[in-house]
Each structure stands twice: as C-alpha cells, then as structure tokens.
C-alpha cells in the first residue's frame, strides 16, 4: 500500500484500512468531566496574575523613579552647587521668558490649548499610575 496522495477514498477501497479506520474512530477517550471548568479557571487566574504583575511593575518603576530623582537632587546639591544655581537661574529665566512670550502672543488660544493638553496629560498619567488598575 502506497501512502502517496492518500485520501479517504483510497482508504475505503481496502478492507483492512476500513476496519482500522472504523475501529479507531469508534474509540472514545475518557476526559475528566470538570476539565473545561478547571482549565477556564486556570486561564482566568493566569490573566489576573498578568494584570497584577503589570501593576506591581508600574509601582516599582514609579518608586524607583522617585528614589533616583531624589538621589540625583541630593547629589547635585552636594557636589555641583554651581550647576544647581545655574539650573535655578535657567528655570527662572525660562519662566520669565515664557511669561513674556505669553504676553507677546496676547493670551493666544493656541498656547492655552497646548498647556492645557500638557497639564491634562500629566494629571492623567499621575492618576493612571495611582489608580489606573481599578478603572481597567
């Protein structure tokens, strides 16, 4: 018997093949009755674990960010006071320039929209970081 380009029509021509095919198809495999339920439960648990792991990771990142930022500030103040002073000056200059720019544009709506957008995004990011998992 050649098994090239075999289809069931070829199998059906041979008595032994017919017997084999019927006998194997008649066999039913015992499966625990509650297997599907247990599998569904396991998948749900795996999903929950995944969400939990994501939240924990977010919190760890936020915490790590705060710690690194704090260390950087302390480190800068201790070892690079001139840079910090310059930075302070830079910030003040930027704020002054920004105020001047705003005055120049005469309270342009476009700028308001941009600032509102940035502020909104910052608030959203902060809230999402804190309580985002409760919303999802």
């Amino acid at each position, binding site marked *: 018997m050649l098994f090239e380009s075999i289809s069931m029509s070829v199998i059906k021509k041979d008595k032994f093949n017919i017997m084999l*095919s019927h006998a194997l198809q008649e*066999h039913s495999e015992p499966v625990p009755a509650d297997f*599907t339920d247990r599998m569904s439960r396991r998948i749900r648990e795996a999903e929950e674990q995944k969400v939990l792991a994501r939240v924990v990771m977010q919190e760890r990142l936020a915490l790590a960010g705060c710690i690194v930022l704090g260390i950087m500030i302390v480190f800068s103040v201790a070892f690079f006071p001139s840079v910090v002073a310059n930075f302070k000056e830079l910030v003040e200059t930027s704020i002054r320039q920004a105020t001047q720019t705003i005055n120049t544009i005469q309270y342009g709506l476009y700028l308001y929209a941009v600032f509102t957008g940035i502020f909104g995004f910052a608030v959203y990011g902060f809230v999402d970081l804190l309580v985002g998992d409760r919303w999802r």
Partner: protein
Amino acid sequence: MSGDVRKKQNKRWLEELLAGDHEAFARFVDKYKEMVFLCCRTMGIRDYEIEDVASETFMAAYKGIRRYRGQAELSTWLWTITYRKGIDYLRKSGRENQLFVEQDEKLAERRNVQVSAELENKEQADIVWEAVGRLPKLWAMATVLFYREEKKVKEIAKIMRVSQNTVKTYLFRSRKRLQELLADVV
C-alpha cells in the same frame, strides 16, 4: 441548522477566540479536549500525567491563539502544539526512547485473549486500539492521525516535524505490524 448559519457561527466563534474571549476559549477546550488527551495517550504519557500535559497544551494554545493565522486547520494547529508538549514532557522525564520501541510483553497477553474471544464491534475497536498502543509511539501517532483524524500525509508531517517520506514509512510499517497483530481479529 443550515450550513450557512453554522458557518457564520463558526466564523464568529473563531473571531472571538482570536480576540482572547474567555467563553470562546472554554468552548474551544470543550471541543478539543478529547483530541488532546488522545494525543497524549498515543504518545505513551501515563494516565496520571496526561492532565498536566493537556493543561500545559491548552495554556500554550491560549497564549498563542492570537498568532493563529488560519493557514492550517485549527485541529491540526492544536495537534502540533500537543505533540510538541508531549515530546518535551517525555524528554524531561527521560522517556523519549519509548517513541521508537514496541511493547512486546503485553502483546503476548493480549493475543491469548484474542484467540478465545468472540468479538463484537466495540470489542474489536478496543483490540485494535490496544494493538495500536503497542506500536512504537511515532508509528501509533501517524496511524491515529491518518486513520482516525483523517489527516493528510502532508499535515501529519507538519505536526510530527518529519518529512512526508518518513510519515509514509511509519504508516507502511505500522499497517504491516497491525496486520500481524490483528491477524486473529480480522
């Protein structure tokens, strides 16, 4: 139910499945669990181990279902995963060589029963199944896929990760051996 309605329902079910819907996946498990258990048993995984391997298989299927593109039938895709999980399991437990070995001892016991028994259809099916169970597991796998699941040689080759010629050899040898084993039955 008409064919069109069933086709639409199947399509919708598949879409839900691919979207990661839990209910759709529960139906998927329900539909294919017997097939997965059968594959594990055919590979010689022990009764008390089968459920673990089947669970691992369905977990892998759940994780991988989004990557299913429909090139192969869903059942063929799942057979492939189950077969690989089974091979991994046997490899880890150091029983990979059983895939190539025939179990001779039990065969002798069974032959005595065959001679004296008057066979009904169901009994014949059981005896054929027993005989298949005694084949080297790779031959048994090819036989089950070909005769029971009606898969093509090409599909079997894909599932078992061997060439089509190897599958043909498995089928040829298995058929010949089964003819010898079942000489009293047929």
